[in-house]
């Protein structure tokens, strides 16, 4: 029989796990707010 798998499940299976302690890089822009945001 043919089984249809959800794409998301496949993606999850194929994804390489990040090493412990991995911190994703911050988005390049916009930068940090130095005082406060209006």
């Amino acid at each position: 029989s043919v089984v249809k798998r959800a794409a998301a499940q496949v993606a999850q299976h194929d994804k390489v796990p990040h090493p412990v302690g991995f911190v994703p890089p911050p988005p390049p822009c916009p930068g940090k707010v130095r005082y406060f945001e209006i």
Partner: protein
Amino acid sequence: APAAPPPPLGCDDPEAEAAAEFAVSYINGHSHHGYKFALNRIEQIRVLPQGADNEILFLELDLLETRCPILSPTPLVNCTVRSFTEHAVEGDCDVKLQKLNGQLSVLASQCHSHADSSEDVRQLCPDCPLLASLNNTEVLAAVTAALNDHNSKTPDAYLRLLEIGRATIQHHPAHVVSVEFAVAATDCTAEEAKDNLEACQLLPEDQSNFGFCTATVVTRPSQDLQVDCQLYGHQVPALRTLPSFPGCSTLPVLIEAIALSQDTS
């Protein structure tokens, strides 16, 4: 395989921050009105390589108004950014720079400033005074009263108004008009000005004394007037072309838009 292109420059990268600091210094150095502005956030940066050691940078900057008048000799690093509850003013700037052999130069810049919304200030601080229009009659009356009061009490040079920087009006619990304005010394004493005010001229550029006054005028429940004027001493600003009373248009016009030969658009 060809070498991968370098990763895009991030807004918090040291190179981006250096370019932004350079741009802010340029903007403050070329503005003749209002207050100095400090960098709050780099919104965007784009780099266009032009060849070896040559690139064009486009920056979008978010600035905040400080308490230092533009003519103040205080370095920007020592200028306090106005707090949110003081009814902050923000500046949005687009700047085009060139980095040639490691040297930055500004090719074009354009800035617009606007005050925070009154609703935002009210929400956080219901009793905080809000910015008033610079041509508000109460504001103009307060500036006139404050300058007259100062001139009547000092034997030094008669001071003339250059521009009103900001003004707030508080209604409760007392009715208080607070004003800040830039002044310039004239070649008259206050006594001489009494006799012939029209003859009093701003001192020549190389001798001019510029200064800044803050004043509060209370009208209710009782009347009171407090004025404090500080003169900076000799400056080299390009203020000679300014009228003595530059119209006092409504906010927000605190950063002068600077249009140079090359436009970022």
